[in-house]
Structure formats: C-alpha cells, structure tokens
C-alpha cells in the first residue's frame, strides 16, 4: 500500500453488506442477486477526517417538517420554505437562532459547495426557492457570495432547471462534467475501481471541486424513487453526483448501487466535507425516478428533511416512498420480481408495476454499516415539527 488511502472490499465482504442491507421482511428475492465484484477506494492521501463529516454532529437525528401550503399548484412558496428551514435548523441543532444553527456547520472563511439534484428537472429537482434560502443562510454567517458554489455533474440538466438565472448574483453555478477543457473536472488520484459488467473503464473519479476547492458541502437531494438504487436521497445524490462513470453499476436487471453508493460516501475528503443534508421533499417521485417527467407519479407533499446523518435521512425517505407506493398500489421497492423487469423505458415510465432493474434500497442500511449513519428506525431520532 502506498500513500493512498486504500480500502479493498472482498467479494465476501461486499456480498455481506448487500445481504445485511435488506429489510428482513423483504429479504426473499426470487433469485439470488449476483455477487458484487471487489471495489477499491482510493481517497485523498493523508486526509484528516473532520468531526463534522458524516454522520456529523447529530447522528441518527432527522428533523421533518411538512406544510401543504409550501407548494401549491407546483409552485414553491419562498416565505414558507424560509420559515421551514429556519425552524428545522433550530430544531436540529438546539440553537435559538437560525444564524447560530448555521454557524455550527459553516464559518466565514469556508468555500461552500451546495450539491443539488437537477437530474429530474424540471418536474422534480432541487427547488431554487430552497437553494435561495440556503445561500442566504450561508451568507448570514459571513461567507461571501463568490465562495458559494452550486454544482452537480451535468450542466445541461442545470440549464433545464434555469438555476443560473434563478439564483442571486455572485454565487457560482456550474456543472462538473462539462467544465471547461474536457476531463479537467475530475481528480485522477481519487477514485473507486471495480469491474461490474466487463466495462472497459473501471474507475469512477471524484470531482476536483469536491477534492480540492470546496471546504464544506451542503447536500440538497430530492425525494425520489430510483429505478436502480431504490431511492435517490442524500447518499445517492452525494455519491453518484461526485464521482463520474457511475451508470455502469446497473445493467438490466441487476444493480450494484448497493454497496457502491455507501462506499463512495466514505471516500475522503467527501465524507468529511459533507456536513449537512437538506432534503427537498416539496415534490415526491414515487415511481419513474430519477428522471421521470410524468406528473401522475409525482406528489407535492411539501416536506423538508434536515439532518447531518445521510443514512438516517434516507431511511426516513425510504419509508415515505414505500408508503406512497403502497397507497398507490405499486409494488414494494424491495420486491424483486423478474416479471416486473422491462427494457422498454416507455413501459417503465408509464407503469408503476414495471422497472428497469431490481432496485437496491438496501444501499441505505449498507451505508449505515460503513459508519455513515443510523439505519435502524428504532434508533433514529425522528422529530416531526408541526407547522
């Protein structure tokens, strides 16, 4: 082993993660899943882990607010999400003021990256209204606008969300993947390596902006079903939005999002820099995620979740999506039925009984076993605030 942080998970170890991540009540797929390959993680050499890193200052704590007036006819209310975010931050931290709450995570000298999720834009993506409040909150602590970076992988998806125009002047808005000068957006020495399906490129590299530029990350996932991962929440948004070449982990009907999502989140400096997770549940995709534009599968519950623990947050999200699917008569996220699998994306997008892959919601619990947070509902401090 050289100066690199080096972790190698054996086939046995990865398979163990996979199995233990599943909900016991649902642990009976029709056919045993294929064994994941070994996955090598190469993090930033000699990086000193931060106490703010995942699971952060408040392991197991998730604050949830729901306000039906926060989104009306698909429009998010700026004043209501402002109040919701302030209340959530105070509840999460125990501070009396929102500014004091934010000061627990961000200091004036920080360069703050706000990792959004524009991949379902415009139907379901990180709301500009919530981002405006986060930006204002970060600035209230003393961070200069030019030190606030709104980013994700693909700039064209951010264009569809019109984030550039809708956010205040001064903050930087950019996509990693199409940054100027081609492949310069990724750090060649920080990567995850695995060969899932015989692909020629077996590495996924960490975004340079995460590795070297930002000092803190505020993660703003959305609340969505995911055809391969089960849900896309805090963990998935961080992992697959930070590393490139990730679509290779799923090929019909199989998905190795478990265990890769959690493993990616352990790689430094991503783990240390991701200090706060604010889940935008204004809209909720209960089928067809992450890209669907079909409004039949998108509810507008007006939910906001705040946590430092991405595992606990995603466990709560998983419960919400699963409950909604149950209410709508859709199969459980955990169900692996070969008859549900289709290679026709049109079928998938318009039929909630169909899917492209065997979903892997067990990636959340698997991430918990890697120390990223609490996956056991009985141990999660789930604080629902009335509005």
């Amino acid at each position, binding site marked *: 082993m050289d100066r690199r942080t080096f972790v190698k998970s054996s086939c046995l170890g990865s398979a163990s993660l996979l199995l233990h991540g599943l909900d016991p009540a649902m642990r009976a797929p029709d056919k045993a899943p294929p064994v994941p390959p070994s996955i090598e993680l190469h993090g930033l050499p000699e990086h000193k882990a931060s106490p703010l890193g995942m699971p952060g200052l408040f392991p197991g704590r998730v604050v949830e607010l729901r306000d039906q007036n926060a989104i009306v006819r*698909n*429009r998010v209310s700026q004043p209501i999400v402002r109040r919701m975010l302030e209340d959530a931050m105070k509840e999460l931290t125990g501070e009396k003021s929102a500014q004091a709450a934010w000061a627990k995570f961000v200091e004036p000298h920080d360069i703050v990256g706000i990792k959004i999720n524009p991949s379902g*834009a*415009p*139907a379901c993506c990180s709301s*500009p209204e919530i981002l405006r409040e986060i930006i204002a909150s970060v600035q209230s602590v003393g961070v200069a606008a030019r030190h606030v970076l709104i980013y994700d992988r693909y*700039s*064209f998806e951010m*264009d*569809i969300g*019109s984030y*550039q*125009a*809708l*956010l*205040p*002047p*001064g903050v930087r808005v950019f996509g990693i993947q*199409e940054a*100027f*000068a*081609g492949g310069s957006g990724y750090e060649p020495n920080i990567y995850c390596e695995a060969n899932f399906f015989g692909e020629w490129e077996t590495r996924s590299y960490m975004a340079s902006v995460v590795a070297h530029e930002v000092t803190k990350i505020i993660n703003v996932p959305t609340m969505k079903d995911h055809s391969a991962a089960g849900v896309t929440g805090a963990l998935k948004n961080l992992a697959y939005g930070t590393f490139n070449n990730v679509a290779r982990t799923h090929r019909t009907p199989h998905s190795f999002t478990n265990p890769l999502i959690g493993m990616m989140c352990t790689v430094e400096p991503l783990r240390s820099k991701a200090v706060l997770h604010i889940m935008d549940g204004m809209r909720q995709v209960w089928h067809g995620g992450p890209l669907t*534009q079909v409004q039949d599968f998108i509810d507008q519950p007006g939910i906001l979740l705040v946590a430092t623990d991405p595992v606990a947050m995603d466990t709560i999200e998983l419960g919400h999506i699963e409950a909604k699917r149950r209410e709508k008569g859709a199969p459980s996220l955990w169900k692996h039925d070969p008859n549900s699998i289709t290679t026709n994306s049109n079928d998938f997008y318009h039929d909630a009984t169909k899917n492209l892959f065997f979903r892997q919601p067990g990636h959340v619990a698997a991430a918990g076993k890697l120390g990223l947070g609490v996956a056991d509902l009985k141990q999660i401090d789930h604080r629902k605030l009335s509005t």
Partner: protein
Amino acid sequence: MTMGIAKSKAPADWPTLLKENSRAGGQQKNPARSPEKVVWQYRAGSSVRSAPILDGGILYVNSLNGIVHAIEVSTGTPKWQFQAPGQVHSTPSLYENRILFGCDDGKVYALDRNDGGKMWEAPTGAEVWASPVVLKGAVYFGSADGKVYAVDATSGRQKWVRELGGRVYSTIYATEQRLYVGCGDARVYSLDASSGATLWSTPTGNGIISSPAVIGDVVLIGSEDFFVYALDSRSGEVRWKYETGLGIASSPAVSSDLTFIGSKDGFLYALETQSGRLRWKTAVGDVVTASPVIGDGVVCIQAGGTFALEIATGNVVWRAAMAGTVQSVPVLAGDTIFLASLSGEVYALR
C-alpha cells in the same frame, strides 16, 4: 449588410437570435416538407447550447468549449475557428464585419468575421449568456453580474451600465428609444436606450430567462412562474397573461397575430397575440426550453428532436430525430435547415 441594426439583407441570411432584431423568428419561404437528406454534418467537439446564425454563406456556431466556428455552408468545412478563454453559451450576433458573443469569462468579444481575429473585448463582472444585440452603433447585453451594459459597437468602449436586481440571461430587445429585458429578479424591465435609466419594471412570479419580443406596443415574454406575459410597451401594464404547466425558459416568436412559445411542460403554445387566447398547444417533448422559429406555414422547434408544426392547427408536419438540445434554435435558410445539437453536431438538412 445593413448599418446599425441586425436585419437580414437576403432571405437566407440569419444574423442574430431568431433571425432579426424584430425577434419575429424567421417568417420566410422555407421548406414545409420534411428534409430528405443530411447535406453535411460538422462536429463542433463540444455541446452547443446557443443558436447558430448565418450570413454570406457562412454559418457561425458557438460551442460550449469556447470555440467559435465559422463554417462554409456549401461544404460544411470550417473557414476559421476562434478559441475563447471560457465556455460559451451565448448566441452570436453580426454587425458589419464583426461577430459578437458573450463568454463565461465575463466578457463580450468582437471578432473579425473574415478571419476570426479579435477586434475588441468588453468586460463585465460575471458570465454573459445573453446574445449581444446591436442597434445604431451600440451593443446591448446583460450579464450574470446583474447589470445591463451598452458599449460602442466599433470599439467596445462602455457607454453606460445599469444594475438590475438579479442575473440577466435574457437577450435584450432593442428599439431606438427603449430596451426590454427579463431578469432573474422576476421583473421585466424597460430601459432608456441612451442612458440605461429604468422606464418601468413589471414583476412576475419568478425569475426570467426568456428573451422578450415586441410587436406593436406589446412586449411578450415568458417567466419561470409558468406564465406568458403580454405587457404594454409604454407602461409595463399587464395586458394579459397565460398560464402554462411549468416554467418558461423559451423565448417567443411572433407573427402578425400569433405568439409561439415553448414551456417546460413539454408543449409548444400558439397564443393570439392581442388577447392571449390559446389557439392550440402541441406536445413536442418532455421539456421545451428552446425557442420556436416561424417558417412558411410552419413553426419549428427543437425539443428532443426537431419538429415542424402547421401554424394553423399545431399538427406535426414532420419531425427529425436529431439535434435534441437545450437552447438551440434551427436556422431556416431557403431550402436548407441548419441545426446544432446538445451533443455537438451541426447539421445541414435539405
């Protein structure tokens, strides 16, 4: 070439966004039939987020990697290329012997259109995605720094600068006395063309990336608040507004009685310009952010492919499963259509 205003001198020319400063978006004799073949295909090497323009047998295309391509339309080969220092999202505009465009490095550049040599640059405080608009020797453009600039078209020297309340990605509509532009602060502004002074501003419900069109005394523009607005050009008073299903980034193209505009809800809308009444709407994709252009009896738009719809009915006349893109706009030039794509391909179809 006309002096001082971007107006095509020949039917096939297309020197600025949506063909002319009138923002009428074409309206010439163009092929209503489906193009039958690809005349040539040019690889720009990077995504194209802006609209091509055409003049004098040269197609000008800006690619995201900062390269300005001057392409001979007869052969599909490059006449020259210019490498800008940053990404380019801005649609170029022509003025006399210059090609003008904004860059993510915060500058607007003027190049010699004959050889691509840099003639001047005008700095702003942040990226410039809007297309520079030229009128009577002045170049007008907005910047993500929240300001609108007027510079001399010959030298690039600043004439005036006016700060608005948000980022400016909307391309200005210029008349001799007044400018009209949308802003990220959710307002539509009318500015005095000679000083930049605000004549009026009208609020909408969310930020604006759409570029306005003016016909008669009506300013037409879309907002991210889902509405299409028709404003009185003198007062800013809302004449009518029409609600679509999602936000609007598309810019309107206007004919004598109809306004065409896309919405992120996936529909292209045809609204009666005077009343705002819906004439028809047609689904053309999951999401529409590009602007339509008007041809001979058809309106064309790129939305995951290129569509031509019959103006009278909204029925799809033909579609080409190429050139899906976020912001690009087809150029309708005689019997040829030029398309640029998100994947960086430029096509000449006939």
